[in-house]
């Protein structure tokens, strides 16, 4: 029979969804800023592999010659990005939710099993609580990346007043590269995240909006009344 199981807290859902448009605006306005000195690319043995970014990309998204506008948006939305991220981190620390998030001593072994399972190489489902091992690593990493963006961002925004932070980030020049690389990282994370969410299905997706997931429990005659009682109580406390 079906049972409602609470999964994501309201604050986790709120910060998750607020972050989405805020980060989108940060990347969009960040491109306006980057355009003014688009010095980065990837080259191997002197052969230029990728240039960030080709002309058609700037044209398609109307990025050219909007530096001032980009800075104005960037330096407003940075506050929302920072405050939203801070809220999530404080909540995760003080609620104890970090226990389900941070990798533990089993995680790296299990993450390998998750990978094999996802690639249909291994049949057995790896152990999982709220997040499986691969999710623990990915979701912890993305929070660290967010902190990295704030730190490197502040380092290139006020490199003189926060000279110590600029030094920690490897100096002004390197901090700007890091700040850019992290953004490219978000794009990759986003793509993989969307695919994984699509594969995980409706129950998983609904949990990030409604907070609960529905699980199928085998009827156990002896315990059944206890279980239903439990869900009822939970539901009432929500009202």
């Amino acid at each position: 029979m079906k049972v409602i199981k609470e999964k994501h807290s309201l604050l986790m859902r709120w910060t998750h969804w607020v972050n989405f448009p805020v980060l989108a605006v940060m990347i969009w306005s960040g491109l306006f800023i980057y355009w003014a000195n688009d010095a980065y690319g990837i080259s191997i043995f002197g052969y230029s592999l990728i240039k960030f970014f080709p002309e058609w990309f700037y044209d398609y998204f109307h990025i050219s010659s909007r530096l001032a506008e980009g800075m104005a948006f960037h330096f407003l939305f940075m506050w929302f990005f920072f405050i939203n991220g801070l809220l999530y981190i404080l909540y995760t620390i003080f609620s104890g939710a970090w226990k389900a998030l941070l990798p533990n001593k089993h995680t790296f072994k299990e993450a390998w099993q998750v990978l094999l399972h996802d690639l249909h190489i291994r049949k057995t489902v790896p152990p999982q609580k709220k997040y499986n091992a691969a999710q623990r690593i990915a979701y912890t990493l993305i929070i660290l990346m967010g902190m990295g963006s704030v730190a490197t961002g502040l380092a290139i925004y006020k490199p003189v007043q926060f000279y110590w932070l600029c030094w920690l980030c490897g100096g002004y020049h390197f901090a700007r590269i890091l700040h850019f690389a992290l953004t490219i990282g978000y794009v990759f994370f986003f793509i993989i995240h969307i695919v994984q969410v699509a594969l995980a299905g409706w129950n998983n997706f609904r949990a990030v909006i409604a907070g609960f997931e529905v699980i199928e429990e085998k009827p156990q005659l002896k315990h059944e009344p206890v279980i239903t009682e439990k869900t009822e109580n939970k539901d009432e406390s929500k009202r």
Partner: protein
Amino acid sequence: MKANANKKVKAPLTVEQKIKRRTFISFGAFGAMGLGAVASWKWLLAAPEETPGITGGTRVPLRRALNKTELFFRNFFSNKHLVKTYPVADAAKTPRVNSLIGIEDDENFDADDWKLTVKFKNKTNQYISLEAIKALPKTEIVYDFKCVEGWDEIQHWAGVKLSDFLAHFKLEEEAKKQYMGLETPNGSYYVGLERESILHPQTILAYEMNGKPISIDHGAPLRLIVPVKYGIKNLKRIGTMSFSNNRPRDYWAEQGYDYYSGL
């Protein structure tokens, strides 16, 4: 107790019903907030542009945010925070020339005839020759010049510390005002700087680059080097200097950039 009373009237919701109900409420709230976000974004995009004045060229709410953010970050400013300096050998041999506004559009300029003009409120002027400025103690700096566009370059400049200059030419009283305005001789490029940046110990009026007199393109005969600001505030070929308690006009602030532009 209330819940119990309800139960007597209505049959308790089945698990199915609870799922439907909570899903409906959550997605409804989610959709409503999504629409709210879209509406706010559209409002911001369509917000009117500020009336051109000391600042201009950007949307009113964004300018307000820039100014508020400036005030917040000015709290962290200290003249004890120094820009990192480098050995002379690290300096670029041919430093980048990025902009020639106020230089290329001034055909009548004669460097030999140049004198710095200090303008006072009472319409009187003080003229200071390059020789008089060069007679003051020289300050050198090799630091990472940062452009608002995003590039940076280690450059080697020398000149007189602005605070020394103000003290020597008895301009300290005048410099108690909140802002200093600098303009090119033809007035086509101009910047405003707040007092704390003017008095920063690394701010200089430069007449030498890489140990030689500054070239025309780099702002001969005298230019501003203010390492606590982006390059846009480092005015080349200073013509006039003035002091005010209001923000002096600023070329890039009129075009949508932050007035402060401090690092």
